[in-house]
């Protein structure tokens, strides 16, 4: 039941992009086609889930006992950067098809603030290990859902008659705004 609440709240109610504004750059940048958006979303899901599983023991078993909790920002960003490299190498070696699909997006994820944001939020909110991993997973799935929805809408508005000055980024931002209104409707769920 608890996990169900986490799912609803981190995927829909406080959607990572549309209400927390994390990961805006890939959300606007890589959402022109549904396939690339889904690839980016899948890569982010993969990395955020692993990152939230790894930062938990690092914080509670290494940083906190040594009284180094204030180093969490430095430690986490380095862990995430190393993790992205590591995931890339492992995928290249053992799962070439998955690497083919996600490869281009992996280096972009280090600078995706959603990964660091989720890791820091997990610690700030004092979540346990299982809760942290599931929060990570469902937050990332929320990212996947919203970027795929945006990409599908963008594929359609490509053929519409948009006013000259709204072409390009402005219309994407208007779309995102309307999506954010729709996601506000989930606010009463939890």
């Amino acid at each position: 039941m608890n996990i169900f609440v986490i799912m609803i709240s981190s995927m829909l109610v406080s959607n990572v992009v549309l209400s927390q504004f994390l990961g805006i750059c890939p959300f606007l940048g890589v959402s022109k086609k549904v396939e690339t958006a889904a690839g980016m979303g899948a890569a982010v899901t993969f990395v955020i889930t692993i990152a939230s599983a790894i930062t938990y023991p690092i914080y509670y078993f290494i940083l906190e006992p040594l009284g180094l909790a204030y180093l969490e920002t430095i430690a986490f960003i380095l862990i995430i950067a190393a993790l992205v490299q590591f995931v890339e190498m492992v995928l290249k070696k053992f799962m070439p098809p998955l690497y083919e699909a996600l490869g281009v997006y992996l280096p972009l994820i280090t600078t995706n603030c959603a990964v660091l944001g989720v890791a820091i939020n997990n610690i700030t909110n004092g979540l346990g290990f299982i809760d942290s991993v599931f929060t990570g997973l469902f937050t990332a799935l929320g990212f996947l859902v919203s970027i795929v929805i945006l990409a599908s809408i963008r594929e359609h508005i490509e053929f519409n008659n948009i006013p000259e000055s709204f072409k390009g980024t402005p219309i994407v931002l208007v779309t995102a705004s309307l999506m954010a209104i729709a996601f506000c409707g989930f606010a009463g769920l939890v």
Partner: protein
Amino acid sequence: MNNCTERLKNGIITENPTFVMMLGMCPTLAVTSSAMNGLGMGLTTTAVLVLSNAFISLLRKVIPDKVRIPAFIVVVASFVTIIQLLLQAFLPALNSALGVYIPLIVVNCIILGRAEAYASKNPVVPSIFDGLGMGLGFTVGLTLIGICREILGSGAIFGFQFIPEDFHITFFVLAPGAFLVLACLTAIQNKLKLPSATNVPGGDSSMACGGNCAQCTGASCVANKGIIEAERVAQKAAKAQAAKEAAAKAKAAKEAAAAKQAKGE
């Protein structure tokens, strides 16, 4: 000194990170629900930017080229931690208003972008002024967006209320309002043909920056390069495929014509 004032002008006007370069969109959208938050976030980022630019410029001959990005990240993260602890101690209200977005200054592309594009190649004093200019440009951008949203959403400027409560449009302080304000802003820029990342000529890539590397100064390009390269290869392959198909069609047509001729004879 002329160089220094030029860097300041460049950061605040010519290459304003918010309005012209459109960098650091996450804090731009997230913390601008009021002018005060925007100003606080801008000044915090400025402090980090000036310190990290100065430090990276000092170390530019020591840091090996191959590991420069991780080295930059460690420097930036250290300064962010220092600033965060100072804010916790002296400005706890601002610290709790900005919340998670303070540690996230580490992944703000403006800071790494300036480190990579300017501080790692130039002496200390111009680098400091470059950081100051960029930081103030960012502060101006965030404060202006914050003022717009605060006036529309809660009828106030810097907490000073002057519009009665019945006329507030709460929508603009909420999440969707942030996207809408930014959309209108970029649309106005497009309309007036002002320089902006959204209306560069020849920007046809799916990247946010339009894939226009000639005018780019950001470090994110290193990462973006892969995608642009992949896009180019795909386009080339599609072209080759189309050419092949056209050739095959022409051949088939020729053969058909030849067969017709043979039949006719």
